[in-house]
């Protein structure tokens, strides 16, 4: 059998629908992961029980395979009376695991801030909330932007696993096409390159954003 990508042409709409679903579930998951990660990251820098709790959470979600987390949420929760459909289970799973990884990044970003800068804000009379919102978070996120980009790229790659709970995102759609066409090699080779292209595009975008947001840290740059 020859390698022939044209066999995919009649199935482009199915694949495109999958791409859209992947984009939706990932976009929501990334937003959720960002919010959760920021909160957890901040909590993890504190000394009391919120810090311990946040660090424990991160430990658990980083050391249990994502498939198992997804199965637990999709098959396990209904047993205790919580029913969530595949799509929102996917969003939740991506949020929970992405939040754990993002929180580590945000936490290092916060710890890397020069203490003197925060002290300057404190003695000027800014409230704790103002300091967090106007000083700590913006500085930490600028540092964290690039590693956060990798976290989000990995989240997109992980989303393929959601095909295992019947969600027909792009990997799920591709399985259908592979079964229909009997051309699994073409289908999966194409899919693999497509994912790589997507992650490449995302990291390019993050790189550009990083340079833009951090212009001011480059000595001698334009004023």
């Amino acid at each position, binding site marked *: 059998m020859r390698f022939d990508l044209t066999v995919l042409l009649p199935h482009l709409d199915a694949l495109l629908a999958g791409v859209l679903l992947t984009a939706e579930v990932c976009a929501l998951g990334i937003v959720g992961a960002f919010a959760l990660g920021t909160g957890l990251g901040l909590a993890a820098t504190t000394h009391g029980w919120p810090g311990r709790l946040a660090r424990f959470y991160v430990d658990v979600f980083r*050391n249990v395979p994502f498939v198992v987390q997804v199965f637990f949420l999709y098959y396990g929760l209904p*047993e205790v009376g919580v029913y969530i459909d595949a799509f929102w289970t996917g969003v939740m799973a991506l949020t929970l695991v992405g939040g754990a990884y993002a929180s580590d990044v945000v936490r290092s970003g916060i710890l890397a801030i020069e203490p003197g800068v925060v002290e300057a804000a404190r003695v000027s009379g800014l409230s704790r909330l103002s300091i967090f919102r106007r000083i700590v978070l913006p500085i930490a996120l600028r540092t964290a932007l690039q590693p956060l980009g990798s976290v989000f790229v990995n989240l997109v790659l992980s989303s393929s696993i959601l095909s295992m709970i019947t969600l027909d995102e792009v990997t799920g759609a591709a399985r259908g096409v592979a079964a229909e066409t009997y051309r*699994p*090699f073409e289908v*999966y080779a194409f899919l693999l390159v497509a994912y790589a292209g997507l992650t490449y595009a995302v990291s390019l975008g993050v790189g550009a954003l990083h340079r833009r947001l951090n212009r001011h840290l480059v000595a001698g740059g334009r004023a």
Partner: protein
Amino acid sequence: MRHTGFTVHDGLLLAQGLGVSLGLFAGTFALGLVLGSAAAVVRHFRVPALGAALHAGLELLRNSPVLVQLFLVFFGIPALIHQPLTPVVAAGVTLSANTAAFVYFIAVAGLDAVGRDQVEAARVYGFSRAQLVRHILAPQAAAFALGPLVGLAVNQLQVTSLVSVIGVMDLTKAGDILNLRTLRPFAVWTMVGALYFAAAKGLTLLGHHWERRLRAHAPPLGF
């Protein structure tokens, strides 16, 4: 017929699954370590076409979902070569190659950290390439790469959980089977998650132990 209680046999099933997961991890990680380091050395010596091809291929593997890679190997390659692959072989090939991709990028960073001036110095003293790698590059790059490699190992252990989807009887598959029999997914996936967690923590401890021992013997890089 349905037995809802857990039995001793279930414990054995899980233990067996854990054994398969750990075995698969150990084998593919070792192989990936060798392949990835070899590719990095090829790149380091700027072997013309081979280096670039390897780099592109491994970049593709690093930036696409393991699940899709698994499908490509297990379903796609047999369709191309008209020769079936067993699940274990497909899993072994996929995970080794995937590990190699990540090892490659860690090793490249490690080799770059050693610095070309040291290499040139060694050349002046008449070291052959093989001696150079063995006595100068490898020990220093290894010391540099150790931390990232421990993190990678924990990750790749979790990635093995995907092979259940092509029918390998690993820990996740054992959970699947147990789940079908007992219909207690909440408990089953919690247990499976706990086993993975314990394995990952064990691996982390082991990794840090080795890291300390190696660091004690290898002199640190000059920074």
